[in-house]
Every structure is written in structure tokens, then in C-alpha cells.
């Protein structure tokens, strides 16, 4: 009688130890990496079927989910969405994202076209696109809105962004880059359904000058709104002619502006930055809102001209947006944008 386990104790087949070469291709068994051709075929076929099935299952599930989506409006909006209700600010031109993805430094030499054209071209493209966009789609959904003409963005129509009143900031003088007086484009992030809340209206939605002053003082206290912006807003409000027939809506629209202020980030920057001009207007008018994915909607912007920045030093510039429901937040970069300028 033979021990039933003696087979087990017999010396193991050596195939396991014959090295990597034999593992790759074993001539004796005709196996490649431990499997014969048909074995490979079967397992590959199995995985093809398995993954195809899995992909179909995913697609089916995703299709069902897709049915719950509306292509015209995001499922979650404003506070429900993670985008929130405090819009960010963006600036143009931007450094080459491929070479320095995290950089916000605008660095160029005056009078050296190869340098400044990189920046001014970006603005040119941006402005031109806005311009052509107007021509393409304007006939249907775009209207020329002004503060006093009562035309507003609706669920279907949006307002034209005017590009003809940018004064010195135009492509013919390379947006001032050639002269070392660059214009920087500032835009407010689009948030579906978001509208700015005007200053100066109480809970019952009645305007009073006192309320306006209160609001602005509160902004100065809580959001560090620059004092000169307060006077700018007050002056603009006072400058309206109360006798026009749609004075109330005109004033409301003016106060619904998202006001924008740019300045040096630190004291030294403030000294170096020089004079700042805003075109066409020191803010983004309220009639552009809300953004409701209207056809041909144009992102409103203003151009900030640095009239006489100190050359040869890096100037940290910070632009902030203000409205009752807009709160600049430097860390989260909400209603705030930051860039550096270095002109050689």
C-alpha cells in the first residue's frame, strides 16, 4: 500500500523555478505568461464581455440620471449649488497657463511689441468676441440696455455689452500696453439666476437717502469699501435728474450696480499704482443680471486703466466688487481678484 500522500511529498514540478524566460514563453507547454492561447482567449473574452456589461450598466444608470437634468438650467442653483451667491471676479489678460499655471503676473516691456502684444491680443480677442457675438445673435435676444431705458435682462433676452465707449482702452493703442498704461479687463463671474441687491432700499423696498448712507457706511465698516467709492455712489445718485419719467427705476438700476474698485494691495502698491480710470463705468450695471443662460448672453466687463503706474516694480493690484449681496473675500477670492503688474 502506498501512502496516499506520497504523491504530495514527491518533488514538486520545477516549472515554477525555471525563471522569468520560461514564464514569458514556455515552449514545452506552449504557454505565454503561464497561459495557453485558448486560455488567454477565454479570459480576454470574459473580460471584454464583463466590461461591456459593466459599461452598459453605467450608461443605463447615467441615462436615467440624465433624464432628470435640464440642459437649460443647472439642477442646483445659487445657494443650493456649491457655486454660492457671492460671485468671483476675473481679470484679463492672463499669463500663459502652460508655462506658469498659477501665475497672475502681467509682465511686459513698453515699446516691445513682442512683449505687450501677448497681453493686448488677449483683450482684443475678448472685446472682439463680445462685439461679434452682438452682431450674430443680437437681432433676436440682445437688446441695448441703458440705466434709463427700462430694458433689462429677462429669461429670454440679455443686454448687449457695449465695446465702443472704452475710450483709451482700445485695440488701436494696444489697450495702453504699448505706452505702459495698461488697461486690465475686470469681469464678474456669471452665476445662474443671480442678481445684485441695490443699496438704499429698506425692508419695504422704499428708497431713502438715509438708508443709502447707512448701507454704504455699513459696507465701509464691514466690507472695507473704500470711502471714495461711497462718495462716488452718492454723487452718481445725486446726479440723476429726478424729473425724468422713469426716475425711480433709473435710480434703482443705478444702485443695483456691482461697484468695482481697484487699488494697490499694500501701501507701497497704492503709491506705485498711480491714477486708475474705469471704462465705461465704475461698476457693472444691474441690467445685465440675472444670467439665465439666455442665448447670446455676453459677460459684462469693465476696463480698468492704470494711467501712470510706476515702472520697474511689481505692483500688487486687487480689485473688489461691492453690492449689498456681494462681499469681497480675499482668501476665497470671492468678489475679489488679484494680479501683479510689472512694467519694464
Amino acid at each position, binding site marked *: 500500500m502506498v501512502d496516499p500522500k506520497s504523491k504530495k511529498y514527491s518533488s*514538486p514540478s520545477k516549472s515554477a523555478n525555471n525563471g522569468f524566460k520560461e514564464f514569458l514563453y514556455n515552449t514545452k507547454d506552449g504557454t505565454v505568461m503561464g497561459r495557453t492561447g485558448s486560455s488567454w482567449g477565454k479570459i480576454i473574452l470574459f473580460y471584454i464581455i464583463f466590461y461591456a456589461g459593466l459599461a452598459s450598466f453605467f450608461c443605463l444608470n447615467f441615462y436615467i440620471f440624465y433624464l432628470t437634468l435640464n440642459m437649460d438650467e443647472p439642477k*442646483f442653483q445659487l445657494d443650493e449649488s456649491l457655486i454660492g451667491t457671492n460671485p468671483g471676479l476675473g481679470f484679463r489678460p492672463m499669463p500663459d497657463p502652460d508655462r506658469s499655471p498659477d501665475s497672475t503676473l502681467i509682465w511686459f516691456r513698453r515699446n516691445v511689441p513682442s512683449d505687450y502684444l501677448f497681453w493686448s491680443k488677449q483683450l482684443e480677442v475678448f472685446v472682439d468676441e463680445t462685439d461679434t457675438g452682438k452682431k450674430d445673435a443680437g437681432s433676436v435676444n440682445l437688446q441695448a440696455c441703458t440705466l434709463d431705458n427700462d430694458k433689462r435682462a429677462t429669461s429670454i433676452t440679455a443686454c448687449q455689452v457695449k465695446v465702443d465707449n472704452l475710450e483709451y482702452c482700445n485695440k488701436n493703442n494696444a489697450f495702453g500696453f504699448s505706452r505702459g498704461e495698461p488697461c486690465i479687463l475686470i469681469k464678474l463671474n*456669471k452665476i445662474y439666476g443671480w442678481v445684485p441687491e441695490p443699496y438704499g432700499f429698506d425692508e419695504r423696498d422704499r428708497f431713502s437717502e438715509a438708508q443709502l448712507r447707512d448701507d454704504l457706511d455699513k459696507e465701509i465698516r464691514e466690507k472695507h469699501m473704500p470711502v471714495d467709492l461711497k462718495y462716488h455712489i452718492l454723487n452718481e445718485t445725486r446726479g440723476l435728474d429726478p424729473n425724468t419719467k422713469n426716475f425711480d427705476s433709473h435710480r434703482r438700476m443705478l444702485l443695483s450696480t456691482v461697484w468695482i474698485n481697484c487699488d494697490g494691495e499694500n501701501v507701497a502698491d497704492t503709491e506705485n499704482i498711480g491714477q486708475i480710470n474705469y471704462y465705461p463705468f465704475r461698476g457693472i450695471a444691474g441690467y445685465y443680471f440675472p444670467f439665465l443662460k439666455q442665448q447670446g448672453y455676453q459677460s459684462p466687463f469693465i476696463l480698468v486703466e492704470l494711467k501712470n503706474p510706476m515702472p520697474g516694480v511689481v505692483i500688487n493690484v486687487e480689485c473688489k466688487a461691492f453690492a449689498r449681496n456681494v462681499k469681497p473675500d480675499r482668501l*476665497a477670492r470671492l468678489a475679489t481678484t488679484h494680479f501683479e503688474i510689472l512694467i519694464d
Partner: protein
Amino acid sequence: MGKKKDVASLKGDIEITEHTLPLDDLCRQLRTCPLKGLSHAWAKVMSEKEGPNRLTPPKTTPQWVIFIRNVFSYFGILLWIGAILCFIAYAIQASSSETASKDNLWLGLVLTIVVLITGIFSFYQESKSSAIMESFKDLVPQYARVIREGQRLTLKAEEVTIGDLVEVQLGDRIPADIRIVEAKSFKVDNSSLTGESEAQSRGPDCTNENPLETKNLAFFSTNAVEGTAKGIVIRIGDNTVMGRIAGLVSGLDSGETPIAKEIAHFIHIITVVAFGLALALLAAAIALRYHWLDGVIFFIGIIVAWVPEGLLATVTVCLTLTAKRMAKKNCLVKNLEAVETLGSTSAICSDKTGTLTQNRMTVSHLWVEGGIVDAKLNDDCTSVGVAGYNKRDGYQKLVRIAALCSTAEFKGGQDSSVPVMKRDVAGDASEAAILKFVELAEGSAAKIRERFPKICEIPFNSSDKFQLSIHANNMTDKGCHLLVMKGAPERILERCSTIMTNQGEVAMNDKALDAFHDAYLELGSLGERVLGFCDLPLPSCDYPIGYNFNSEEPNFPLTELRFVGLISMLDPPRPTVPDAVAKCRSAGVRVIMVTGDHPITAKAIAKSVGIISPENETIEDIANRLGVPLSEVSPESASAAVVHGGELKELSETELDNVLRNYSEIVFARTSPQQKLQIVEALQKQGAIVAVTGDGVNDSPALKKADIGVAMGITGSDVSKQAADMILLDDNFSTIVAGVEEGRLIFDNLKKSIAYTLTSKIPEVSPFLFFILFDIPLALGSVTILCIDLGTDMVPAISLAYEKSESDIMLRSPRDPKRDRLVNERLISVAYGQVGMIQAVAGFFVYFIIMAENGFLPQDLYGIRPRWESRAVNDLEDSYGQEWTYVARKKLEYTCHTAFFVAIVIVQWADVIICKTRRLSLWDQGMGNWVLNFGLVFETAVAAFLSYTPGMDVALRMQPLKFVWWLPPLPFAVLIMLYDEVRRWLIRRQPGGWVEMETYY
């Protein structure tokens, strides 16, 4: 190198010839004298030449080396490499960008902490159980009495040298290996050397070539239990028999445990997978025109992501839990990894005394009035049945002699509630057995002794081989004295002229003699120790009351006595052992008896416990049955064998190999420590995983060498306990079977646990791959990966250790260490290729849903990564034209991470449930594992806690999820369960089919 050679020489059998030389020659050789001992001068010379008489302590491994070894175990090294790669990646990132994420730094630190904690844990476990040599030190006597130049000196044992004449008496430890020159009823306890618990008498005569069996040698560190003796020292220190064993034990390497090999194999597999994937990714990254430095970061990232951070801890905890559970079953595990070894064991070399047997002599048979009577202990051990003999005259007389002719007594202070079998007895094992028998059969031995007070006695001595006492008879006033005697049966018979038969007392005749010899042979062949009993009522006329019996010069008859009967005893097998042996057999574990005891006894016990099964015969049995000489029986016809140590000595390596191969049932008798080792090594060479049980010092080399050494907790010597990996607290062989069962269970459950843990690696790593290959925002961050590996996955993975076995694991063969691996390609295929993929798809499903619901449709995510990741871009447009700031979209990304994390938790519910079984339907396995059910709740609670606790967004970048985002993974969880149920159904339906071949792990 030198050490290895030493061990090899120690493995050889001891060669001592000094005991065979004539005493004069020996004395001349050693320049000593059997009366006066060495001269001081020569003692000094010898002392310088031979060195001190002590055991050389082995080189101990410093604690810090052990610590380093623990911290850099296989698994440890994997984690270390991961950690170092993390630090390298962080250094690269930090040097190229100021705002580099610290993720890699944290990951590296966490890996370091994990490996250190687990390392410290196992170091703590191990350091509890080292210091083998320490226990040998306790064996060494402190002082010795030496005679030099005729003067008695008390020396430190260290100073004893070869040729010294030493004096020992009861209670002493023998200070060196000595040849006895003079002895007075001298007995030594050799149990620590040979395993025989019986004290053995020693005298000046050489009775055997074998030094361990001859009567004129006594060995270093054994105990003198009776009498006094003088002897000449022939071996000292490391050269003594005990010293060689000590050297052997500390020089042996027990090798890697099977589970350590499995873990190494497992790490090998995942390293290959990780590097293969990482290299493929590196190539892809270069093809996609990434900067090479980014490629390196990705490469490192993949390898690190592939490290199962939690698995080391999981495996350690699983083993610890099993160790705890085994400890409850009286199986104490010293080395954690040994927990599994018993499960892989394919051969058990078991000692006999104390393990298979009770180590308690018990009367088993009587021969009285011509018939053999079974002395059956009834079930509750309170009385003995003798099948109708108890009224017979012969039986009554035999019991009377048994009670009287004895010096054994129950020790005082034991009250009658202690069962007789458990009471302590003062006296040797045979007398104790007889005393207990009398107590059980007749109620009280003391009563009989009261009736017949002892007047005179002659104690047992080895030349006459009998013991005698004379008692008065209080029952009759005739003053009739009774002489009783017991001893070696043939010696007793010689002194008898009459014999008790069923016809009463008759004169000795051939028929009676034949009956006696038959009975004596039969009892002997059962491996029992047989004693003969006779008596003689002394006529009152010749020996009146007050007669002065003289035991020194017997003035009473020592012959012409009346033979009454035989009592035979044996150390009975433990009642649970036959069952346990049968279980081992059905579990494919062969049980081999290796004992220092005599072949006949060994074989008898082997037969009675089933180590030699009833239908199998040895060559000797066949020869006996057929009535032919041994040489005519072909060895192939027998399947059982009893191998004597003497025969074993003559066998070559291949011959031993053949013996082990050709006989399924083997008993090795009269084996020396070195031979035990030899047997273990031969078995191991055949690929068997060997467990060895033993209790004596003599067993310790084999215990150490075995894959798992099992020492006895009660009777075991400290040395054997130190050398072993496991200790049986109840000394019971059947406990080993429980251990085998636990070991097999934990192996299966570790497989399940690893399959569970590995699966989630796919959903963890795939986001990173998609991030690189498709430029989509990262779907799962490294922090969340750690939360899974070291958080939510841990409890369910550990809970699988509590899973009950799927089938009767004791009915299958032990695993083949070459084929049945802990982790094999099939496990990888199922975990990574199938279930893991479903999980990854589930995670991405949630990811795309959240992205889409917030405005980023899948098609727009493709390629978005550079702008998504750029801090400068504060107005990234989504599919609905909304513009996202960097912070807002990162918050969205982290919400996706959290949701992906929750999705993994949910699909891991399904995974842990399918991992409960490898073959059975969940329906049959049930959900009775409450630890696992708790694990399901626990991981969910952890996930909810991480997601919703305020402050987690800062600490771990976890974001609160909308409730509906918990739901999308559910269909995938159901899919996993259904898929695997079908897979297992196919495995069951088609045993050996393609599905089993490719997916049964």
C-alpha cells in the same frame, strides 16, 4: 559559518563509550581514582584545559536588532518604500512650486506612523517570548560535592572538571555527566532528558551500549530522587548530553512560518502589479507630453496609492484575535504567525507520555484464578468494575495483597470530596496506581491496612526484584500472620509452590504455568507493566504473636509461597485522544508518534488511540500472524511501522525518507533528541509542514526546528516551553485539533479579508488615473483614500476573521503550500478586475452626478484639469456658462471626493457581504456574523461622521453631502451582490469548471 558547522555536529548522536570501559581503564585514562578522586594539581590542569563546567550562553540578538527586524518586516518594507517615495514626491513638488500641496508629506508621515505602530506591536509580542538560554540556566546546579585527594570539598558546579569524583544524594542535581562507581538504591529522574517520568535506578554496572539506557551513567542537570551515589565525571559543560541539547536548540533556526511566506508572496504580487501599472502610466504620461518630473510624481503616486496601508494592521489584528480565541481553548500562542501554521500542518509528531496519555499509571487488568479481568473504571471515575470477579476468593486475596504490600499512601490534607483518581499519592507510580485501584474497588485501602497492621517489611531492591511485608491479623485472635509479596512476575513465580485457581489453591503444575505465561505475554504485549502477587499465611504455631521478624536476615519463608495473581498497569490514553487522532486523519494530517518509551508500550498506545489503525499491521504483526520469520515478509505489505531508535540510527537519509514515504502510520520508539530532530527534518524535506509536541528538554531541538513546536503547559519543562511556538495549557492532544481548525479557519478568513481590502484599491487608484489620462478633476484625494484604508475598511476587514467556516474544514486535506496560496492570481482577478471595477464605476457615477448637478457635464470635464487646477483662473466656466472661482470649484471637487468616498463605503458593504463566502451562497452562510454586521453600521457611521461633522472641511477636506448623493452607488452595490452570487453559483454548479478555475480563490 562556524556556528552552522557546530550545529551539524551537535545533530549527530552522542558518542559516549566511557561507560563500557572497565572502571580501572577509565580511571587510568582520566588519571583519577574511584576512591580518592583527582589530585588537586591534576584537577587544576584539567580545569584549565577543559574550561569551566557551564553552558555557554549563545550570542543573544540585541533588543534593538529585534526591533529593527520587526519594523522592517516584509510588509513594513513595502510601507517604508511607500513613505520614502511620498517624501521624495513632496520634495520634488516643494522645490518646484511654493504652493505645493502637502498631501504627499502627510501621506508619507501616516505611512511611517502605521509601520512604526505595527512594528512596535509585533516587537512587543515577540519580546515576550525570547530568552531560550535563560531557561537552561535554571537547570544548572549551583554547588557540587567533590572528592579530591580523598577530601570532601564543596565546590561551585562550574569548577567541577573531568575525572572528578562527585557525590550525589537525593534532592541533588547531577553536576556533570558521571559514570557511577558506587550507588545505594540510587534513582534519577531522567524525564527532562528522555521524557520518561518514571524514576530510574542507577548502579555501577554497564547494562547497555546506549549511553542513555545504561545504568551506570547519570546526566548533567537531571535530578537524583532517591539514594546516594558516587561517580566519575566524564563530560562537562557544553559537552554534556544536556549541553549538546542546549547548544542544538539555540543554534537551530526555525525558519519562516508558512504565513510569513504567504505574505511575502502576496507582497511580491502587489508589487509587480503596482510597478507594472506605474510604468504603464509613466509611459502614458510621457506620451501625453507631461513634464518628466510630473511623470515621476505620477509614478510615485500610483505606487503609493497601491500600498494597502491598513492590511498590515488588519492581518496582525486578525491573527491576534485568533490567538485569543485559541487561548480560550487552552492553546496559548507565543508567536502570532504560528496561529496559522497549525492550520497548514500536514504532519504532527507527537510525544506519547502526557500528550497522548494521561501520564498517570492506572491499573488496567488483573489476572486472577486463570482469567484476565478488565479493570474498568466506570464513567464517573468513582468505582472500578471487575466483571463478576469481586466475590471470588482469588480476587479477594489479590486485593488484600495489593493493599498491604505497598508503601504508598494518600497524601494528607485531601478530603474525600477529591475524586480518588485525582488525589495525590506519596509513592511511586505503580504503587499509586494499585492504591487507587484498591480504593476504588474496595472502598478503602486504609481499612484493610487497619485490619492487618504491618509488622515487618523488605523494600524493593533491583537485584531481588520483590517487595515483601508481614502483617498481623486483627480479625482473628489466633495470631495468624500474613506474609505478602509483590514483584516482577517471573521472580515471584519462582518463589511459589502453589497457585490460586478457580478450584482454589492447587499445587503448581504445567497447566497453571502455561496459563501464567500466556497471561503474562498477553498483558505484556498490550504494553502494560505487570506485577506478580503472592502471599502466605504463616502458621501461628511457628510464628506466634510477638514473634520477632527480622528483615535484615529473614527468619521467615521466602519461598514455597502461594501465587495469587497479576496486576497490570498502563498509562492510559486520554479519553479524547482517539477521537482527535481520527479527526486529524480525516483532516489529512498524519500523526506520527515519536517517543522515548519502549516500542511495545508505544505500539500499544498507538493502537489504542488510532495512530496505528486497527486494520493496519506492521511487518512484525504480519510475520507473527503468518508464522514466518521477519525476513520473509516484504516491507511493502505493511503500512504501519514501529521504528526503534537503534534501527533509526542505522538508517541513511534516503532510507528514512523511504520509511516516512512508504508507511502511513509510524511509531518511533526509544528515540534520542537528535533523532527526533532528524525525523522532523526529513519530513520537512518532503515538503510537509510539521508540528511537534513535546514536554521534555529532550524535545526542545525538535520543537524549535518544527514549523510549529507545541509544548505542554502543565508537565512541560521551561526549556521546551521556551523553544515552542505554542503551549497547550491542558497538555491535551485534542487541543491541537482545535488549533488546526482555528488555523485553517483563519487562513480562509485572511483570504477573505485580503480580498475585501484589496478590492477598494481599484476605486481608490482609478480617479488618479483618470485625472492624468483624461485631464478631469481628481475624483478622490489621498486624504480620503487614507480614510478608507485606515478608517472605514478596517472594522469590516477584521470582522471577516469572525466568519464561520463555509464547510467542515476538518474534512479536507491540509493546504498544499505550493499551490494553495493566501493570495493568488484568481483573488487578484476577482478583487481588482471584477468587483473593484464595479466599485470604481459606482464612484465615478456619483462623481459625474455631482459635477453635472452643479453644472459641469461629463463631456465638459474632459481636458479641464489645467484650468481647474490653476489658482490664477478665478472664472472657470461650466456647461451652463456659470463661472466658478478656484475656491468654489475646489469645494465642489472635495464634495466629489467625499461622495466618492461614501460611494466606496456603500459598495464595500456589498463587498464585505460577498467576501463572507468563497463558494457558498450568502443564503446558506447567513448574516450571523454580528461583528461584521456591526462593521457595516460602523463604517457607515464613520463615513457620516466624516462628512457631516463641522470642521471636517478644514481638517480632512470632507464636505457635507446632500442625502440623495448617498443613493447612486446602491444599484452598483446590488450589482456586486448579484454578480458574485451568480459567480459562486456557477462555481458550485460546475466543480472544476472554467469559472472555478479562473475565479475561485
